[in-house]
């Protein structure tokens, strides 16, 4: 007889009717090659019984299943039939089935019963039981063993139901194909098969229909998550009731006056007609709770004084968070509106201690770590007001709202800071300084003053910063920064901490083109792009995803690629590489000297990988633009780097600062890690081939 594994094997071979090696099959099925050989023999026997062509074996090539169309269809049908009747659950799946069995079975359940229904040994069942215990223990339910009777769940009915809901929620999601993405993918379980095994499809679909009609009756739309919760709960109540277990506990709070209660009462009537199950008033109450605490995709108009309370709460939260984040979110109307929508059901949940699941919690805590702390602090502060405490799940949802607000701010362009420039004469140096500031930062220069006119015009108002090349005495509290007329990296860095760097506000070429396209028909997009680049002479953001700045392919051209160059030594190689940049006006002649100096001073560390050198120098040593040259050497030369010599590929680069070439560098890294592309460049005959490889590398970096 063939088992699950053999079926998998046959399926794989039917799907791809070519030769498979043992290794390929072993990988596909996830077992050893030896097991594959053994399975193949069994498959052969099975095929023989069915009178279907056997597996073809060819030395050196592997095994192949080549069937006629008729045979294939027959085999597929057989496999399908078998799968249904003899599906063997994985260890993980057995836990689901066992939990389900505990919840469904009236009274005791014996090990033999479980062992038989799962087709595994009693000792395996005993072993699995440890995990099943764990599932129940999370809800304070124990499994008790009684001699001669068997196993039984001990715990409050409500807790047993919670454990059961927790288990089947993901299966219901699978069956209804909603919100599946929120559950972690598990390789070890096949949710589809489990759902079919455990759930009563008819009841589940009926419940889905019911919740939709409830929505219609009360005129709201709930989120899929609420559907899921509600359907799971009703289903569990139904199953437990069938098994003879009633929900017995004192209801502390009734919800009978609500619209929701009426709708559910009506739904209960329909359900009873169909399945003969009468919901108790306790159950009804539980189900109303789910809806009342639910978030709605469309908010209802709240009536009466409560609204003011909720509004205040939302305001409080926003203001409290606003104090701790570095940007202004208090005026974000969208945040307020969305938060208000969220707060209404949230307060309900908190007051009635209805737990809400937050599958995103771990992710939220990781991605928005500091924001989470801020929001948590804000929540703790208002806990007294609403006389309850916030579970982490609720905080997680709030963080999402605030996170969205922060993202919105990022997208908006901030206002330009107003800057006043002062120098001794108010000419020359201050002009120079103004120009540099304007090209580097997102500022508005509101005035240029000489020392004398500065004194005369004091005090200034509406100015954020004063930049001066000379020390100043000022009566106002406007911060004054004294800087040299020509800004160096150090000063730019210093100012960058106070002013917004302009490269953060550059346009994305794609969106610029898009804007143009809205009003005109573009005939030659590439040319337009190139012209725009030249005209505007500013950098464009290529991508917002990874490192910003120009891609490698944008700063290299046919002119800066030179192949099979003949050189006598490393210094000549570096200089020739530098010359390529020099000829394109990317660097001044001094730059090559600086590159050579680096190697002489600090050693041949610029040989980055086997055979690849990357000479470069500091921006202030003559870099005029950002650029890269690539040169392959006819005969490799040593650079004095024991590990990576000799060098056959020389990649010189120049950058005007320490940031704008980051993207290109990361592209280069991708290239270095790809020996195949390096090899292709090494043997390239034409510069075009090299550019094509670079182009492809850059795409990978996207």
């Amino acid at each position, binding site marked *: 007889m063939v088992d699950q594994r053999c079926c998998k094997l046959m399926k794989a071979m039917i799907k791809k009717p070519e030769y498979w090696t043992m290794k390929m099959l072993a990988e596909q099925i996830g077992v050893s090659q030896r097991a594959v050989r053994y399975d193949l023999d069994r498959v052969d026997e099975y095929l023989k019984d069915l009178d279907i062509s056997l597996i073809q074996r060819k030395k050196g090539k592997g095994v192949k299943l080549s069937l006629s169309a008729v045979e294939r269809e027959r085999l597929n049908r057989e496999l399908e039939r078998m799968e249904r009747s003899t599906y063997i659950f994985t260890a993980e799946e057995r836990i689901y089935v066992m939990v389900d069995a505990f919840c469904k079975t009236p009274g005791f359940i014996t090990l033999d019963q479980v062992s038989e229904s799962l087709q595994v040994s009693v000792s395996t069942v005993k072993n699995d039981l440890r995990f099943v215990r764990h599932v129940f223990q999370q809800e304070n339910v124990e499994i008790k063993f009684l001699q001669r009777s068997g196993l039984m769940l001990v715990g409050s009915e409500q807790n047993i139901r919670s454990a059961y809901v927790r288990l089947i929620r993901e299966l219901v999601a699978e069956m209804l194909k909603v919100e599946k993405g929120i559950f972690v993918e598990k390789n070890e379980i096949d949710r589809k098969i489990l759902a079919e095994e455990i759930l009563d499809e008819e009841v589940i679909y009926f419940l889905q229909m019911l919740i939709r009609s409830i929505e219609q009756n009360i005129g709201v739309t709930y989120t899929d998550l609420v559907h899921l919760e509600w359907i799971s709960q009703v289903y569990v109540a139904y199953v437990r009731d069938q098994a003879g277990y009633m929900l017995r506990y004192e209801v502390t709070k009734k919800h009978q006056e609500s619209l929701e209660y009426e709708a559910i009462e009506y739904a209960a009537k329909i359900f009873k007609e169909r399945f003969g199950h009468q919901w108790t008033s306790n159950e009804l109450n539980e189900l109303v709770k789910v809806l009342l605490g639910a978030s709605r995709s469309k908010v209802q108009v709240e009536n009466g004084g409560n609204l003011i309370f909720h509004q205040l709460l939302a305001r409080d939260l926003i203001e409290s968070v606003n104090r701790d984040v570095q940007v202004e979110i208090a005026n974000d109307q969208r945040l307020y509106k969305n938060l208000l929508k969220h707060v209404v059901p949230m307060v309900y949940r908190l007051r009635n201690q209805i737990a809400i699941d937050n599958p995103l919690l771990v992710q939220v805590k990781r991605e928005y770590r500091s924001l989470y702390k801020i929001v948590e602090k804000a929540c703790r502060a208002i806990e007294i007001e609403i006389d309850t405490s916030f579970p982490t799940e609720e905080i997680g949802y709030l963080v999402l709202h605030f996170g969205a607000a922060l993202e919105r701010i990022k997208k908006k362009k901030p206002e330009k800071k107003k800057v006043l420039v002062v120098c001794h004469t108010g000419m020359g140096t201050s002009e120079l300084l103004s120009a540099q500031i304007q090209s580097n930062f997102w500022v508005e220069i509101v005035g240029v003053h000489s020392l004398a006119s500065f004194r005369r015009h004091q005090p200034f108002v509406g100015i954020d910063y004063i930049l001066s090349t000379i020390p100043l005495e000022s009566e106002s509290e406007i911060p004054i920064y004294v800087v040299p007329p020509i800004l160096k990296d150090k000063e730019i860095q210093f100012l960058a901490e106070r002013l917004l760097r302009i490269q953060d506000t550059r346009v994305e070429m794609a969106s610029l083109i898009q804007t143009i396209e809205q009003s005109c028909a573009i005939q030659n997009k590439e040319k337009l792009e190139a012209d725009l680049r030249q005209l505007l002479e500013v950098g464009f953001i290529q991508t917002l995803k990874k490192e910003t700045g120009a891609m490698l392919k944008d700063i290299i051209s046919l002119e800066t690629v030179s192949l099979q160059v003949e050189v006598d030594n490393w210094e000549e190689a570096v200089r020739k590489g530098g010359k390529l940049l020099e000829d394109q006006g990317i660097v001044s002649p001094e730059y090559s000297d600086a590159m050579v100096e*680096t190697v002489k*001073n*600090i*050693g041949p*560390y*610029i040989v*980055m*990988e086997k055979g690849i050198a*990357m000479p*470069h*120098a*500091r*921006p202030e040593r003559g870099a005029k633009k950002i650029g890269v040259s690539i040169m392959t050497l006819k005969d490799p030369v040593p650079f004095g780097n024991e*590990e990576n010599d000799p060098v056959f590929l020389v990649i010189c*680069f120049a*950058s005007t600062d*320490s940031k704008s*070439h*980051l993207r290109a*560098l*990361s592209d*280069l*890294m991708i290239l*270095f*890690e790809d020996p195949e592309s390096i090899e292709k460049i090494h043997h390239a005959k034409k510069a075009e081939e090299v550019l094509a490889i670079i182009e492809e590398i850059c795409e990978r970096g996207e």
Partner: protein
Amino acid sequence: MLKIYTVCGNGIGSSIMAKMKIDEICEDYEIEADVESTDFNSAQGKSCDLIVTIKELADQFEGKRLAVIRSYTNKRKIKEDILEDLLEIAGK
């Protein structure tokens, strides 16, 4: 939060590449670190938890915690060279 500097001669090429790789390694091991690249001269005056550089530059740092790398770009080699130090200073 750890502060780590990667150091090369110019501070704009190799050390940035090494920085990118170390960022990746830190992420792999869930180590919170602020990794910055810098040139040799500026590195001297900086205070940090770890300096990562090549052997040619290493002897010139005194009294600083150092990790010497053989490559600025090869993640595997970098990992071999710094992981022990990294985990130790991260207290892992």
